[in-house]
């Protein structure tokens, strides 16, 4: 189980022997945060709120640190070009919000061997995403993984239930729990921000109540079937797992997109995996 927590040394030291994803607000804190975690815990990654990639200052001591960089945009390629080689050398995944320029930027970065992930948001442009998804999964030459498409494709099962792909966004309570500075425990970042905690103390981390809360969350998707929700009846459910649904509605067009994605994934079977370059860290 990985724990996502803020860069608070006292909190991190209390987590002795755990696997930790530490959050920092600025890139200059990446190395220090990694070092603090590694003193007594295993570092899974550093999650860093970032400036646009074109403005980022890459430090030497980022080498060997798995980094999830949450960037608002890529920026002009002429400014990214000088950093491309350095970015490739890092164990890095760049997270970008789903906007037109970012979809292009994601494709550019991936084509240069830099792993990226697109956060769909509430109302994505499905057509543009479908284009990027097709490139991500059927592109003819090796490129870095583009998530969440890669994670969805890896977890897709024919004649069986596909894996939930929330883990790529650190949103899978079977793998990741979220802590605030006081050590209160939440099942996701959204819950943490909303103050929706399953336990108020770090000592409850391995307790039966937390375990039960995790189980309930992992089974929450079954509520859609209990309610005969339209997502439960959708042919795309087996791949989207209703991740786009907020419990009431899903954004228009999600069914067509995920249906197409299932077709692309099935078409992709049989393509040599050697098309993909060596794997970087996965959430």
């Amino acid at each position, binding site marked *: 189980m990985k724990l996502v927590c803020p860069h608070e040394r006292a909190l991190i030291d209390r987590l002795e022997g755990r696997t930790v994803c530490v959050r920092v607000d600025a890139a200059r804190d990446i190395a220090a945060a990694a070092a603090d975690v590694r003193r007594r815990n295993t570092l899974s990654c550093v999650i860093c709120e970032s400036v646009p990639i074109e403005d980022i200052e890459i430090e030497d001591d980022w080498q060997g640190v798995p980094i999830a960089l949450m960037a608002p945009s890529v920026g002009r390629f002429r400014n990214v070009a000088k950093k491309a080689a350095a970015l490739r050398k890092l164990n890095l995944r760049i997270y970008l919000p789903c906007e037109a320029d970012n979809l292009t930027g994601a494709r550019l970065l991936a084509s240069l061997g830099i792993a990226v992930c697109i956060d769909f948001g509430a109302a994505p442009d499905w057509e543009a995403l479908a284009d990027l998804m097709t490139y991500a999964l059927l592109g003819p030459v090796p490129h870095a993984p583009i998530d969440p498409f890669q994670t969805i494709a890896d977890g897709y099962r*024919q004649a069986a239930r596909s894996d939930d792909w929330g883990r790529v966004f650190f949103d899978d309570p079977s793998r990741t729990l979220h802590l605030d500075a006081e050590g209160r425990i939440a099942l996701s970042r959204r819950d943490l921000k909303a103050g929706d905690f399953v336990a108020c103390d770090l000592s409850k981390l391995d307790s039966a109540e937390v375990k039960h809360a995790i189980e309930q969350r992992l089974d929450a998707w*079954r509520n859609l*079937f209990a309610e*005969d929700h339209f997502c439960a009846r959708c042919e795309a*459910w*087996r791949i989207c797992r209703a991740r786009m649904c907020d419990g009431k509605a899903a954004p228009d067009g999600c069914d067509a997109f995920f249906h197409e994605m299932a077709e692309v994934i099935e078409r992709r079977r049989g393509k040599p995996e050697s098309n993909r370059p060596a794997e970087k860290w996965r959430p």
Partner: protein
Amino acid sequence: MATLILKPTEACNAACAYCEVDRKGWRTTKIMPFDILELLFVRINEFLEERQSEGLEIVWHGGEPLLLGAEYFEKARAFQQKHCAATQARIRHTIQTNLTLLSASHIEALRKLGMTSVGTSYDPVAGVRLLKNGEDGSGYNRRFLDAVALLEREEFRWGVICVVTKLSLERPLDIFHFMTNLVPDGGVMFNPVNVEKPEHDTFKISAEEFADFLGAIFPVWWEHRDRYPRVEPFRSLTGALLEKKQNYYCADGGNCANTHFNLGPEGRWSHCGRSADWGLLDYGSIFDRSVSQVFSDAARDELRRRNEVLSGGECRDCKWWSVCHGGCPLDGAMGSGTLMGKTDWCRSKRDFIENYFVPIAGMTPNSTRSG
């Protein structure tokens, strides 16, 4: 392999709207006492000792078998170990249950009997699946879904029968996707509802309607048949008609005379679950007759003769004989008054195959001739 439908009780906690089995009241229905249960395993051992190459599948059925409690299954296991020590390796247990009473202790007991999967039934149509305790349909659904969650956590597989009623006809693809989304890797079988009583006319469907229901789903399944779990009747028909794989359910194989028998809670042998429900083909008491004697009953010769009669008679010119064999003999008896009659449901099979399966699966006219 011989198949025993074991009905230790006919009581049921559910009140499915279309159910026509009368003997399901809680207080009046019998539960198989332990002396009969124990005698059953004595009889089973006799049978397997006589037939050294034979295996036996025991299908726990009902009513609702989980009403018996986990202890009942533990008891069955103890009897099996006591009386079938040398033959129990050839005994396989399965269960058909509505799952709404499932608990961890049930699962443990079932696991000890060697089960790794369960069969169930479910219909995602409002107002059909109900419980006797007064809870509305959402209560049934909630219990069912909690139960399958428990099964999956305990690494049990499960397959489901979806009963198609009049209420299902408007939304075939909705139901198809719902069921295939829900069942992880087991099977989904679509069966038509079987109702005769006038009060159930709102659920009744015709053979043609059932064929069209399947036909609405089939193109989607066919295009992506590797994607979906085993969906029946599509998978077995594909196997039989295109891949020459002979793997039939009891109603289609024309062979149940040689394989099936049933034991009710009072120790009466009969042919199968339906025959017990409908009072047909009684083979006597477990106290008086062994399993071998049940298989030698003269009534079975009639059943065996049925294949000959039908294939030479009303089914003579049918291209689909090999995947139907005139259907369930009991269906035939209910419809025509005689075991020698074919089932009325054969029309749904024929219509489905000719109107949907053949054109969509791309069978050529020559290849439609099945043996």
